[in-house]
């Protein structure tokens, strides 16, 4: 069981959250061309390491959080509200 320290709600169990994937994929400019969009839509870094990812606190404050978690140990070392990290 992951426990995520939501900046608004405090320490909560993972079942209150919904995973929304890799937070490092950046939408390219509209003129960037098909290769850039293929990479954005389909390709993933899929790191076996620290991974920055989106989690939606759907069963709590309903804020979208940006979390840094290790994909092998599942340890979480940073949690921030999306608005704080523009």
């Amino acid at each position, binding site marked *: 069981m992951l426990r995520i320290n939501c900046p608004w709600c405090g320490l909560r169990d993972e079942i209150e959250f919904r*995973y929304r994937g890799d937070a490092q994929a950046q939408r390219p400019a509209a003129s960037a061309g098909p290769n850039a969009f293929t990479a954005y839509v389909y390709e993933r870094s*899929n790191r076996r390491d620290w991974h920055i990812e989106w989690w939606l606190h759907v069963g709590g404050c309903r804020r979208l959080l940006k979390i840094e978690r290790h*994909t092998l140990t599942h340890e979480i070392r940073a949690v921030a509200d999306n608005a704080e990290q523009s």
Partner: protein
Amino acid sequence: MNSDATYSRPPESHERESAGRYSLLRLLREGLGGQRGWSRAWHKAEPRPRYRVVIVGGGGHGLATAYYLAREFGIRDVAVVERGPIGLGNVGRNTTIIRSNYFRPENIRFYDYSLRLWQSLERELNFNAMVSQRGTLNLFHTESQRDLFTRRANQMRLLGVDAEAVGRDSLRELVPLIDLDNGRYPVLGGFLQRRGGTVRHDAVAWGYARAASALGVDIIEHCEVTGIRRDGARVSGVETTRGAIMADTVCLAVAGHSSQLAAMVDLPLPIETHVLQAFVTESVKPVLDVVLTYGAGHFYVSQSDRGGLVYGGATDGYNSYGQRGTLPMAEEVAAAALTVMPSLARLKVVRQWGGVVDMSMDGSPIISRTPIDGLLLNGGWCYGGFKAIPAGGMTTAHLIATGNPHPLAAHLSLDRFASGRTVDERGLGPFPYAH
């Protein structure tokens, strides 16, 4: 001691340790002789400096590819390199189900080819893989789900693949433990594919390894690939923990870790790695003689010959390389199990484990060339790789031997994502955690 000349010659098959042919007569003779005549089922090879083909990954797909390369295409200068002992990755971690009940015609053809290869596998490999065509039964719980399943069954029947509708009365007879009148998710019916079933997964790895080894394939355990060598735009071999091994063709068959290997040549893949759990209960007398899937949640179950109920559900839902799994999904799968078969509540779960799987962005596998000449990929199996082992091995061997995709696997190329020809079986869009 060993000169290069000795090293670069593949051993003749008669030089190999081999258990000989297995038969009932042999079993009787060994039984009377105190079981002392058995030898190793396959030869534990040392790496030679050069091979025509190096296959990375001694799991189901890697071993099957090596076997079909040797058997069907006469290419025996092949090494399978495996980080640990063979068969301890996903080929030994799945829930052993085989079936071909898909919707997309190219998927039906591919998986049914696999099912036909399963049907003759034991005779071909001379190995008891306990192939049991006990049937796979998919339950549906709503009218719209009935429509969806009917459409799929019709599509299968149009292609000559068996699928039959099962009404509630027959269901009651077939699987008495189902709670047909569940208050929230009553069972309206099901679809049965009688040719589906289970196979003993460890025996698949062992059987292919034994047969490949007997044909001259080197199976090299405890040999982890740490780098992929390139000569310009072409692959030239692999760096391993046991030294460099040169090769004309390198095939990655490491589903779960495909991205890790591809990153060695800076090749991003449309894959995320997720963990999928499986569970086994204590053994009981026979209570379930089909593979059953629940339609209102993610749960599938069969009873092993030892008597334990082997079951699983969905992935844990977030990127993970941890081969273990976490409690919330274990609870969710158990809840689904008890909704459809409440009597299972009396059973204790005796084992639980996790395997890490390549979740591809369209839910379909990848058997393909890559932008690097000579580097091929067999991966992206999501959690459907086990049933596809024979077809995956055969079509990957075809790609290696001929340089062209096998007609049944041509739709599984890596460039389908860029060209918009994704194979999205369930029409879910580009989400790796949704399939």
